[in-house]
């Protein structure tokens, strides 16, 4: 059975291995340059006053032609991996056998449907995890200097490096550490199960892409924030100077940007002195003024800023919890898939 799995999967495995090797080589040849930039910027020894060194490192990293490309290639590769694995390895595992009517053939080579399904899912599932794991390992190692400096700078901004995407941010978190293994396993199993349900290759592949993308959106947005109760900080009375950088939402919300090194900002609210959410609609006297006057007017209201966030040192705790959750869901789904394959006797 292992031989059959290997023989059928060989071509896909070669493609996957080629991607891993090509990517790893690209990272390996540029890693020393990147860590050289980090060392020469003075970041390793800057102690508590690092902003100049950080700016210097990130600016020279971003100015390079190669580092940003590799950074985002790796990010994109790992974000697309679960859906692609599900669509190209998971769904066809069942549907191609159904369409070729080969299940009746293989199950009469003294292999029970249960054994066939368990071996196939286990072997290809492990291969999926190995692929995602190796890419994530290479990328997490290569991008470590950027992550240590607080994350890739996006947008720029007048002072310093502007907004950074740390490894704890929604998108980047899914492409670091061990979480990619969990997403790859779940993506694969979702493909298998949808293959059993839909039984035709192209619709099953399309359904897999949609479902996996939905999981990748739902988990970071609605599940991850509740895994561990966030920490809260309250900044007392916001002055006009603090409000200089505020952004205004469609319904009058006022958001003052906050920067906590490496942390994941869950919520960032501006509240009135008695603790209720503040909206410009409650302060009509401050509207229809010039920019500076608006800030002065709001600065006189005694507004405070309440930020809930996950500190940077919870990164691995979150990685562990989320990976365990995804792998648990994969195992449950896979078991359901095996039972279903046995019950419906696809043929």
């Amino acid at each position, binding site marked *: *059975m292992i*031989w*059959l799995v290997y*023989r*059928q999967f060989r071509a896909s495995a070669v493609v996957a291995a080629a991607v891993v090797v090509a990517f790893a080589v690209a990272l390996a040849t540029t890693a020393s340059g990147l860590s050289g930039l980090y060392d020469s910027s003075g970041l390793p020894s800057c102690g508590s006053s690092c902003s100049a060194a950080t700016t210097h490192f990130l600016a020279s990293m971003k100015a390079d032609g190669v580092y940003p490309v590799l950074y985002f290639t790796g990010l994109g590769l790992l974000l697309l991996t679960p859906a692609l694995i599900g669509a190209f390895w998971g769904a066809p595992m069942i549907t191609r056998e159904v369409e*070729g*009517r*080969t299940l*009746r*053939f*293989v*199950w*009469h*080579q*003294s*292999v*029970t449907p249960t*054994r066939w399904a368990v071996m196939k899912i286990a072997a290809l599932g492990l291969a999926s995890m190995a692929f995602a794991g190796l890419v994530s390992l290479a990328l997490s190692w290569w991008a470590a200097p950027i992550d240590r400096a607080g994350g890739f700078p996006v947008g720029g901004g007048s002072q310093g490096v502007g907004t950074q995407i740390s490894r704890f941010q929604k998108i980047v978190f899914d492409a670091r550490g061990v979480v990619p293994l969990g997403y790859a396993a779940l993506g694969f199993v979702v493909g298998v199960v949808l293959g059993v349900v839909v039984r035709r290759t192209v619709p099953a592949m399309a359904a897999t892409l949609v479902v996996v993308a939905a999981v990748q959106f739902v988990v970071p947005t609605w599940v991850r924030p509740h895994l561990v109760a966030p920490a809260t900080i309250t900044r007392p009375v916001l002055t006009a100077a603090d409000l200089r950088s505020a952004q205004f939402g469609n319904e009058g919300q006022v958001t003052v940007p906050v920067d906590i090194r490496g942390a994941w900002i869950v919520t960032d609210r501006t509240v009135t002195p008695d603790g209720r959410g503040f909206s410009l609609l409650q302060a009509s006297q401050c509207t229809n003024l010039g920019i500076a006057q608006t800030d002065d007017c709001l600065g006189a209201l005694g507004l405070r800023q309440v930020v809930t966030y996950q500190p940077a040192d919870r990164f691995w705790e979150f990685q562990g919890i989320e990976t365990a959750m995804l792998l648990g869901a994969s195992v449950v789904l896979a078991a359901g898939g095996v039972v279903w394959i046995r019950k419906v*006797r696809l*043929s």
Partner: protein
Amino acid sequence: MNTAIQTRQLGKRYRSRWALTDCTLSIPAGRVVGLVGPNGAGKTTLLNLITGHLAPDAGAIEVLGGRPGSGPGHLAKVGFVAQDTPTYLGLSIADHLRLGARLNPRWDKSYAEERIKRLALDPRRKAGRLSGGQRAQLALTMAIAKRPELLILDEPVASLDPLARREFRDELREAVVERATTVMLSSHLVSDLEGFCDYLVVIAASRIQAAGLVDELLAAQGGPADLEELVLAHMSRASRSEVETQR
């Protein structure tokens, strides 16, 4: 004599239509059993119940003393070639034989290789590049090389040319004589089975119309009837009774 296949009031339903009803059979081991009936009569349904690819909706079935498809040991004893002789199109003939050798406990390697050579097939050729008849030969080779106690063949000769049909019959007969294999094969052409089967099951309109040793069935019919007439007699009786029940 041992019983290879035993069914009692077996039935299978697709939605509201019964593809097979009230099927009671007791087929002795070591026979070449012909399953004959018009297209859509329920032949494939019965064979899929015997191989365990379908679960019955009514009645009971026992094959070689066990539930069909109940485990690897039971699967090893039953060889099956489905109607469209499925194979892995992307795998070569040699890959198929390797697959058979690794998965089947009683695989006869030398027989399989020798038969492929006799058929003048290139082992490196992919199954997807074989003709329909060659693919059927590959599937048949694998089913026989598995050395089953019961060999189920659904319309096995449909895609073979006349010469290959005769050669294939000889080969099956050899398997039956040498290894006491029970063979059950279906066809809608009586001429495929004439002079080859010694046990006959006639199926029409989802019901068993007749079952028994060919000699005994012919004797019961009386007169110098041949197999063709015998089958036609049972089938026309089925269609008459169907018309009557519809009234």
